[in-house]
């Protein structure tokens, strides 16, 4: 089995990836724009997806633009910005119903692509910038989002862990931007940056659905072509560091449950030799409900509802997160760290290794079956510059041994233990 039939073609100013599939009643289009992650541009890049979705030359208001999408059977359009290692990626996603299931004349896909083309290339302009009203309103929305980041305690604890762990590293910048940079940002500055971005960002377009490849290429050529140099497609190599002494940070907020988040360095990136043992390690450690973290923190000691781990594969980080009673901090921390040590000293069975592999393979197959999930997996490969078929990927996982898992467990270093907890200890 291949990951998917994928036809990649260098087009004028971007790479087109066509993924034919008869599984869906829709056609999905994903556009990825990539640049280097930096504090200097992050605030603008956090703001742009929202500004671009508000007004275009042909649809100069949000209502008109959204109305046009609704006319196309409520075609979905969304955009977001995210860090992948030390690259920053803007993603535009569109999903349109395949004409063959509708009593409709004319190509919905073409009309939808025309709208996406407008959103990307023809924002409505005014006095050298975006529409002032749109700019001001979206600035206010982002300001509000930055201000209320504390309201979601789980994501706030993640952000604080990153602040401490990746201080001074590019990865430490906040994905939603910086409030001071936002205050001083002018409409003209944003527009200048937009022009730079739309011309120079590395661009990949993915189209999946039940539609002939030739038709996709022809439509794509019409709506995505741009005058720009083609980059290699690879992301920027992220910085790494050895940890001499792990840090422990405790902070207080008004809350009822404590959030225990622990960060590790894996020194392992997507597609490297150790990437496969890392996945199996994570499966045994905290990736699933059968993993050591869930079984010990939750099932054995009843300390938490959730206790899990996940890894970031373009920076080389691994995180544990759990919600616990503020009084159980020491106990939960000890149990979590003990689980990692147990893997280092080989306290796990061949069966656990095997089960972890099967879980990972199942999860990958499941993700590949979802159009957006498939695109994310393929884009990981694009970023790492390492292309691998599904068969090869599964084989590499199958080949991982107990010894490999022990080795990677020892390679993974504890970096920061972060605990966000209630204001008064024992107030629970």
């Amino acid at each position, binding site marked *: 089995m291949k990951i998917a039939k994928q036809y990649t073609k260098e087009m004028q100013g971007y790479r087109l990836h066509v993924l034919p599939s*008869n*599984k869906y*009643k*829709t056609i999905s289009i994903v556009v990825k724009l990539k640049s280097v992650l930096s504090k200097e541009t992050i605030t603008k890049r956090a703001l742009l997806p*929202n500004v671009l979705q508000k007004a275009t030359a042909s649809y100069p*208001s*949000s*209502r008109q633009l*959204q*109305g046009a999408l*609704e*006319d196309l*059977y*409520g*075609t*979905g359009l969304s955009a977001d910005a995210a860090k992948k290692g030390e690259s920053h990626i803007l993603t535009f996603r569109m*999903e349109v*119903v395949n004409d063959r*299931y*509708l009593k409709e004349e004319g190509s919905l896909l073409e009309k939808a692509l025309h709208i996406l083309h407008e959103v990307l290339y023809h924002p409505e302009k005014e006095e050298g910038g975006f529409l002032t009203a749109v700019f001001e*309103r979206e600035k*206010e*929305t982002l300001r*509000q*989002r930055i*201000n*209320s*980041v*504390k*309201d979601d*305690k789980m994501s706030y604890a993640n952000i604080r862990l990153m602040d401490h762990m990746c201080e001074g590293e590019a990865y430490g910048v906040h994905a939603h931007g910086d409030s001071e940079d936002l205050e001083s940002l002018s409409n003209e500055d944003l527009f200048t940056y937009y022009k730079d971005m739309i011309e120079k960002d590395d661009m990949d377009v993915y189209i999946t659905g039940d539609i002939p490849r030739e038709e996709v290429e022809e439509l794509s050529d019409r709506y995505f072509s741009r005058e720009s140099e083609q980059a290699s497609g690879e992301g920027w190599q992220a910085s790494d560091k050895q940890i001499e002494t792990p840090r422990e940070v405790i902070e207080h*907020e*008004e*809350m*009822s*449950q404590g959030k225990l988040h622990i960060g590790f360095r894996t020194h392992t990136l997507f597609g490297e030799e150790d990437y496969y043992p890392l996945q199996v390690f994570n499966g045994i450690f905290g990736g*699933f*409900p*059968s993993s050591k973290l869930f*079984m010990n923190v939750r*099932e054995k000691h*009843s*300390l*938490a*509802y*959730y206790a899990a781990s996940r890894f970031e594969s373009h920076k080389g980080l691994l995180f544990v997160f759990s*919600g*616990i*009673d503020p009084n159980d901090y020491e106990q939960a921390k000890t149990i979590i760290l003990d689980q990692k040590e147990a893997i280092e000293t080989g306290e796990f069975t061949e069966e656990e290794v095997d*089960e972890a592999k*099967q*879980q990972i*393979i*199942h*999860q990958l*197959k*499941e993700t*590949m*079956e979802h*159009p957006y999930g498939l695109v994310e997996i393929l884009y990981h490969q694009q970023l790492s510059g390492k292309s691998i078929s599904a068969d090869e990927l599964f084989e590499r996982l199958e080949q991982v041994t107990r010894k490999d898992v022990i080795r990677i467990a020892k390679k993974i270093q504890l970096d920061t233990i972060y605990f966000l907890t209630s204001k008064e200890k024992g107030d629970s």
Partner: protein
Amino acid sequence: MDRREFEHINETVYEEKMDNGLQVFLLSKPEMVKTYGIFTTNYGSIDQTFTPLGKEEEVTVPEGIAHFLEHKLFEKEDRDVFQDFTKLGASANAFTSFTKTAYLFSATSNIYENVSTLVDFVQDPYFSEASVEKEKGIINQEIRMYDDQPDWRGFFGTIGSLYHRHPVKVDIAGTVDSIQNITKDDLYMCYETFYHPSNMVLFIAGNIDAEEMMDYIRENQNNKTFPEAPEINRKFPREPLSAFKSEDSIEMAVSTPKAFVGLKENVKHLSGDELLRSELFADMLLEYYFSTSGKYYDELYQKGLIDDSFHFETEWEREFGFTILGGDSRDPGAFLKRLKSMLHKIKEETISDEDFARMKRKKIGEFMRSLNSLEFIANQYTHYHMLGINLFDVLPVIESLKKEEMETFVERWIEDSRLTSFQVKPKQ
């Protein structure tokens, strides 16, 4: 086994009622790699007062017991069922809603074993005092996690202000206090009453051969014995049509205030078809006025009374129904006032034929997009079946909707006496 073809969307559903009363549905999609199974009982958090199987007297059980039972069904005398699915390379989960408890798996291999694992573990309970006590710590942390989420508190605060005494106003997981009283005997009593096959639906969708799968399930069921079960007698308190309170609020540690308007829907005496049509109209009208293309959304957004956290939902069940709109607001007082007057004004608005056609197109597109997901099909098919509706008939129903019918709906939809407002205020 009966076979129902839905030509317009190119799907076929196989169905059979087993001798013990279990309703089974199968959807074969050989082009998919994945298979998804969900086993649902018509039993949720609102089913607190009932006559237990084989008894004469009604009982009222502690709040949160359906959810507690869901947790405990995974634990057997000698093992945790999550491990069984893990060994089969599948992932499993479960959820409890107001009206249902469901157990599910997703697998890409060992499909028959996964189906029997699902059916067998749900049909073979094991509860002990020790394991019931152990679970209380875990569920306490689950409840506390939700306690720290302002949106969840806003949602339940609004429902609590709409309903005088109906159990829909109680959090699905119960409270830290209410779950302390749950015993092993309570769990067995609820289990025997509500987990009888005649009160349950099994749906398997994906890479299966329908005929063989039905034989397999039939044999599994024929090998088990269940007592005769009369129709379950459930009791709900008499609930006035009007909202319990016209306004209420809580204080918690949020940076931005949150505000919601709730509408208590009048679901009394509605047939399945009427419920579906009402839910469709309510949803289409909310989309029309309050989605990003809507004129009311536009006004609220331009005035800075809402931001992109604004959302709405409408839920229509046999025993209750509600619509909730709201989100973050810098000026919650002004926002609530304006939102309420907008809701009242809907009655006086007119919708053009063109706009009505667009509303229908949007709904059709949204429905078609959802059909990409096996989870959506299986979950919604089960949900609608329990309301006496067929999921795949929803599309022709949307196509058949008339503007005049919607105008009649709007006449009775919103009344001041059924409205409430709820605020989450920043703690001083």
